[in-house]
């Protein structure tokens, strides 16, 4: 076990605040010229397919002389889309298994994991939709994919192995 000092965002509001205040966070706004209901429908259709899944991350160290040691952890992602009045919110949570996690709030982590992205989906007066992303710095491709769904310019999935770590990664059931 390794010590550390950081705050784990265990609620959507904590994620928003972390994105604003942390150098590892990103807050950005995207305007989409599509009606709110169409945008929410597109995201509702793609998010469960593309953002729910597991990734195995393996790190190998050493050589033939010293012996090779491998470290593996499984990272699981869960999306959740909720309607709140005239707006909607998309959450992405992350849970890591096969590891020891250290940090403030580690005992308050929900079963689906801590929050790594919140997207506020808000209708605009002009008939379009505003997406407000609150996320960790490494989720560029996820934000790009969600923006493509919202704009109806693409339906591709972000490669979740690209946001989970390094060395060797692959899907897990």
């Amino acid at each position, binding site marked *: *076990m*390794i*010590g*550390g*000092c*950081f*705050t*784990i*965002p265990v609620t959507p509001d904590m*994620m928003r605040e*972390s*994105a604003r205040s*942390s150098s*590892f*966070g990103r807050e950005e706004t995207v305007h989409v010229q599509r009606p709110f209901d169409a945008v929410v429908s597109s995201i509702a259709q793609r998010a469960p397919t593309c953002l729910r899944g597991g990734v195995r*991350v*393996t*790190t190998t*160290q*050493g050589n033939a002389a010293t*012996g090779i*040691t*491998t*470290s*593996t*952890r499984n990272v699981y992602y869960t999306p959740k889309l909720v309607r709140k009045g005239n707006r909607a919110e998309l959450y992405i949570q992350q849970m*890591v298994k*096969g*590891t*020891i*996690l*250290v*940090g403030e709030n580690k005992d308050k982590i929900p079963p689906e994991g801590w929050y*790594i992205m919140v997207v506020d989906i808000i209708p605009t007066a002009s008939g379009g939709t505003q997406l407000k992303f609150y996320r*960790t*710095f*490494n989720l560029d*491709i996820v934000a*790009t*994919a969600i923006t*493509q769904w919202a704009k109806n310019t*693409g*339906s*591709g*999935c*972000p*490669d*979740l*192995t*690209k946001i989970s*770590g*390094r*060395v*060797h*990664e*692959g*899907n897990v059931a």
Partner: protein
Amino acid sequence: MKVMLRKRGLSGLVLLAAVFWLPACSSTRPYHDVYQKNLEIHTKTKSDSILLKVGASLHVYRVTGPCKVEYQGTIGLGDGLTNVGIPVGKPSYLSFEFNTSGILGGYSSSTDTSTVITPSPGHRYRINASYVDSIYSVEVAVQSPHGGKRTVLPLQKLSGC
């Protein structure tokens, strides 16, 4: 010997540790493509980094029962068109795998997406498989024997799983 994997979190460093042994092995074999070509696979790959290369491959399985498949072989998919034949009237489970690896070694990743296709006689299936800048998609469309309009097919999950 302990191995420590360091992952950057939102507000600092999330430090994680776990130790497992993972055997490295590969059991793929070439797909024995003896059927009439009824899959037209158009592949496009592009890496978002000059230090990473991307490859694509198709793993073909025969569906043998509810949530049961039998591996038939693998086809490497270069950019452009690849014609493949799968048995007509029988369900095949097609798994598209996209691999990324560092040109200097030390890093590799793979992700996959899959569908079940049961080809109808005389029908051709056009599949667009793309992995561009770490966003991937597989789209399937079918065209009738008389060259009618292409119909987009949703990706089908393996039943019974």
